[in-house]
């Protein structure tokens, strides 16, 4: 585009003494309409990037909550290292960039008419839709786990209004001396693969200081997990025998929960009584994506790996945890980096131009294992000759393993870099 727009922009600047932000805000009224559903790591990044890169595009962000509570760093609330206010972000920065932020639930998408119906009855038309709705919980798939049960056994796996993570923190603070915290961890795929294990670590970090005879029983539907060796090294070094991880092959799969009795029941009928239960339930794409017919039989949304256009609706680009994009993890960083390619591809398509060539996607996930103890996994992703996403060969991977004594500097630096990542990426979403 940029020739025409830049010329106009320059002319406006030259002839006007008013603020430089004004022309783009005004011009966007008549430009293409980009609507973004979901104001999280994918959607907020997309809206912000679109305003920066394409000042002539009118951007509407539909997000029901008036502020955003991040899932990343939620575990640090459990560890007593952060407060809820420190992981809660305002949409005012996006408004100041000219994003029309609409705080309402998107109730339905009509991919043919290209409209989004809102819960208040309004309808928003789009030329391109960026859909970043996050996950939905498969209520009831784990028997006994419904919304009422999640008040007793919080999932704390969606930011929402922050009440879930606050609930879990309160329960851990009130754990009887020497009590048992149980976690039920789902099979793949799910949001934030290392998240449950960082959570175990941060709960242990808190208990070690305040309730050192307490126990953590982590029941897992899998036999292995992200950064497993690094986590288990850290647990042994920092928390002794406080943490017991029970994999699927040792009857770790929880198939039924009884909130009234505070019981997790395993596949082979073992009933484990817990004082505090954190159920990280089975997931799929959020309802708005499934109801629009975008998901396949897995419950997640197949997309074009080069543009993130939904297989079922080419003018809807689906980013973030809701889509199917292996081998990339369902992470905030992936949602952030892919959001920009999705926006660029969407705008290029509207202009009849080709999508960005040879896109590169990027991920780094830091996890806090203890005080001054961070670990990471990094990945640089691209498309192979067949257009499939691959991790760039011989790159990426996890922090080096080995005794803490040999790696104290690395672990301490990665804890600091994790904080830097959080600060920086939330700026890239909301500032």
């Amino acid at each position, binding site marked *: 585009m940029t020739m025409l727009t830049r010329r106009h*922009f320059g002319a406006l*600047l030259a002839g006007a*003494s*008013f*603020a*430089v*932000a*004004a*022309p*783009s*805000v*005004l011009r*966007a*009224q008549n430009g293409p309409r980009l609507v973004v559903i979901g104001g999280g790591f994918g959607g907020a990044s997309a809206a912000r990037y679109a*305003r*920066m*890169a394409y*000042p002539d595009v009118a951007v*509407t962000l539909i997000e029901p909550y008036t502020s955003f509570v991040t899932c990343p760093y939620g575990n640090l609330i459990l560890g007593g290292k952060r407060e809820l206010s420190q992981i809660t972000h305002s949409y005012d920065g996006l408004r*100041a*960039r*000219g994003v*029309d932020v609409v705080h309402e639930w998107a109730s339905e998408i009509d991919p043919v008419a290209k409209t989004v119906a809102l819960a208040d009855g*309004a*309808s928003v038309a789009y030329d391109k839709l960026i859909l970043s709705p996050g996950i939905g919980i498969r209520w009831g798939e784990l028997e006994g786990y419904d919304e009422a049960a999640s008040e007793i056994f919080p999932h704390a796996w969606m930011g929402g209004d922050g009440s879930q993570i606050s609930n879990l923190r309160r329960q851990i603070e009130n754990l009887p001396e020497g009590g048992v915290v149980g976690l039920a961890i789902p099979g793949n795929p799910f949001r934030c693969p290392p998240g449950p294990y960082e959570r175990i670590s941060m709960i242990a970090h808190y208990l070690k200081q305040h309730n050192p005879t307490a126990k953590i029983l982590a029941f897992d539907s899998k036999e292995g997990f992200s950064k497993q060796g690094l986590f288990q090294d850290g647990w042994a070094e920092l928390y002794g025998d406080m943490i017991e991880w029970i994999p699927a092959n040792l009857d770790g799969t929880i198939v039924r929960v009884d909130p009234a009795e505070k019981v997790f029941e395993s596949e082979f009928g073992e009933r484990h009584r817990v004082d505090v239960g954190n159920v990280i339930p089975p997931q799929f794409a959020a309802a708005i994506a499934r109801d629009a017919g975008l998901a396949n039989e897995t419950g997640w949304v197949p997309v074009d790996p080069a543009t993130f256009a939904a297989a079922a609706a080419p003018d809807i680009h689906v980013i973030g945890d809701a889509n199917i994009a292996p081998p990339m993890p369902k992470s905030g*960083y992936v949602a*952030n*980096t892919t959001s*920009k*390619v999705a926006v*660029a591809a969407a705008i290029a398509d509207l202009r009849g131009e080709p999508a*960005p060539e040879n*896109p*590169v*996607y*990027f991920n*780094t996930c830091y996890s806090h294992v203890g005080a001054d103890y961070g670990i*990471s996994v*990094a*990945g*640089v992703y691209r498309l192979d000759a067949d257009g499939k996403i691959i*991790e*760039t060969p*011989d*790159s*990426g991977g996890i*922090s080096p393993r080995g005794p803490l004594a040999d790696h104290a500097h*690395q672990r301490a*630096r*990665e804890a*600091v*870099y994790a*904080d*830097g*990542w959080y*600060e*920086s*990426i939330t*700026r*890239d979403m909301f500032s």
Partner: protein
Amino acid sequence: MSFSNFARSGALAAILLATPFAAPAFAQSAPAPLIAQGCAGCHGQAGEGIVGASPPIAGYGRDAMIASFSAFAANERPGTIMNRIARGYTDAEIAALADYFSSLR
């Protein structure tokens, strides 16, 4: 929707017109190129870094950045995470990153 949109944008424009020098310059600052967006998550959209955590990379000399990437990739320069990341980019991509970040102040 369209009315409230118009009204809200009109209000914003009026505010901006009323306060010419207070408005941020973001509308004219293009974002980093797509290849550099992976860097932005830690080092900032303009490579500004985070004090005490992520080092700034804006204004990094072009040749120095290319040399730094190859030293990281070959494990000739100690690093915590950049070694793993540097190996993920092609020479052409690294040159594009160096062009961009060296162009920033």
